[in-house]
């Protein structure tokens, strides 16, 4: 029976390793100032989720000797998908590491992890425990919880930006092996793919779960979270500034590339974060056509409201 949404169905979490004794600094940022909910904590890790999420975590923080992006987690439909994707990834010549349930992360079914051509690690799994909606399942008030008001209080993890020395090869792998679609791309004047926005989740609003930018392999460019609309983002920007948080030189802007309204800023470790809303409307269909940008239009693509590219914006942040 084929009429099923298969494969990767949601971007689940980002796992960061931070040189942060007892995770004090990062928990202070992500829980208390950024406004995520702490679902679990053990001696090694803190598991945080966005308030509109039922699944246990969208961000996993753990203490490591050096700051690093450990992995990005994607939720599959079922175990059958896990087996099929394992075969496809191995057939592409990429080594796949198998992990039993609850390892390395709690609340997760058995999983596979592998390194994509851009050097970052992805983990795929079919099961994740749910904390339940913080607003409850019975006649809820879908309103930002009182204790989070005045923080960024993101609703969902939206997408993750990565840097890659060969963006074209990374994009090809994500599309051909993992089944991502391309909603937008930036090409050089001679037609080389420099950047792409990839989406997978039968998604008709959004258009990106992974954004690939040119740069050093293995790094994180930014992590983006969902807000309801631009007005929210403008108001949250006030809270961030009042709180002394370092806001990117672009300030709030319309990102033509991806069709979002966005605000970029940095956590206490220097990791670039984004609050965004809107997005490109596209569906997970073989005939969907990507928007194509040429590099000469980069300034307008990255920020419609600013007159030139903010050079620092192209750097990875972890």
């Amino acid at each position, binding site marked *: *029976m*084929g*009429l*099923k*949404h*298969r494969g990767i*169905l*949601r971007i689940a979490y980002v796992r960061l390793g931070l040189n942060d004794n007892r995770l004090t600094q990062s928990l202070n940022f992500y829980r208390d100032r950024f406004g995520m909910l702490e679902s679990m904590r053990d001696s090694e890790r803190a598991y945080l989720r966005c308030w*509109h999420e*039922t699944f246990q975590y969208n961000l996993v923080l753990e203490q490591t000797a050096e700051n690093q992006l450990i992995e990005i987690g994607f*939720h599959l*439909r*079922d175990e059958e998908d896990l087996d099929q994707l394992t075969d496809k990834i191995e057939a592409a010549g990429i080594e796949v590491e198998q992990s039993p349930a609850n390892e390395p992360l709690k609340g997760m079914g058995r999983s596979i992890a592998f390194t994509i051509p851009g050097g970052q690690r992805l983990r795929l799994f*079919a099961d994740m425990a*749910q904390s339940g*909606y913080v607003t409850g*399942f*019975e*006649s*809820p008030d*879908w*309103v930002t919880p009182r204790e989070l008001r005045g923080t960024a209080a993101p*609703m*969902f993890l939206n997408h993750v930006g990565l840097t890659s020395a060969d963006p074209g090869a990374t994009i090809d792998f994500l599309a051909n092996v993992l089944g991502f679609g391309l909603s937008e791309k930036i090409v050089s004047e001679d037609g080389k793919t420099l950047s792409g926005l990839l989406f997978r*989740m*039968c*998604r*008709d*609003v*959004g258009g990106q779960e992974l954004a690939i930018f040119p740069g050093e392999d293995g790094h994180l460019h930014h992590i983006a979270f*969902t*807000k*309801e*609309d*631009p*007005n929210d983002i403008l108001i949250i920007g006030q809270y961030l500034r009042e709180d002394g948080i370092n806001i990117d030189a672009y300030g709030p802007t*319309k*990102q*033509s590339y991806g*069709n979002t*309204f966005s605000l970029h800023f940095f956590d206490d470790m220097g990791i670039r974060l984004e609050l965004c*809303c*809107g997005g*490109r*409307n596209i*569906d*997970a*269909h*073989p*005939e*969907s*056509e990507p*928007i*194509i*940008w*040429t590099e000469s*239009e980069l300034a*307008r*693509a990255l920020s*419609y409201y600013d007159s030139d590219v903010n050079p620092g914006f192209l750097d990875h942040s972890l």
Partner: protein
Amino acid sequence: MAISRFSYANVRVMDLQKAIIHYTDTVGLRLVESDDQRAYFQADECQDHHCVITTLSDRAGIDHVGFKVNDPSDLVEAAEAASAHGLAVRDVPLGEIAGQGPGVMITLPSEHNMLLFYHADKIGYAGGMHNPVPGVSKNKIGAKVSHLDHTLLSCENAQPTVDFLTEVFDFSCTEKVVDPGGNIIAAFMSCTNTMHDLALGPGPNGTFHHMAFGMHSRGEVLEGVDILKEDEVPALEYGITRHGIAGVTTIYFHDPSGNRNEFYNGAYQSPGRPGLVPPIIWDVENFSRGAFYYEDAVPPAFFDEVT
């Protein structure tokens, strides 16, 4: 593979010219093509041929809803599955509906016609496909609708349709309203990552409650209300409000044949395997807050009057 999009609604109208003026000048859709029987419209931020068809008729209401599948073989499979479920199925040949490939029309237990198809002709985003203009042009006419988001169809008993959509077409039920006996009064069904693509509410079988147009911000919904007022479009008594169910900013209004439309903004996402996250349950006691969050009351006409 699967149903990948709620693609369009084909609504019946009693005056085609008035419908064209409404859906372009007021709602802000692009008129793609028309003849003396039908007009085809698309929102600015969709690349397919149409999201609304208006068909000349002697009554208002819904002719059919169109959903796109992302594998041509899905059509055969869907037709077989629907037939096995005892539903009426007919082939819709190429050319019967402009701008799309052949499809299969399935009559749901709720007596609504649902057309599945694979191919849509491309007209591109209004801002273009190459180095596009991201904002809204100063010459933009009508409201700033981004896309057709969802529809609410009315029927006497939603349960068999909910069962069919979940079991056969892989929809998830994100929220539902139930009576004290546990019977479904309304169900919000998703085949994408959003909160609902197709909702079912109470009313005579085969009738149309509304179709909703998505916007990028609450500010655009407010501007949309101003346009409705200036154009003297009849709107529901409560004006702009918020649905407690889904938590979105919204206004309902009517096209020139009385078909209900909605402008709406919200960011509720529900990706993942259908059925994995249990549905939110609204009981009758809290339904008024669920329907109209600020007012905490439901105007009698809200479910009584459908087209």
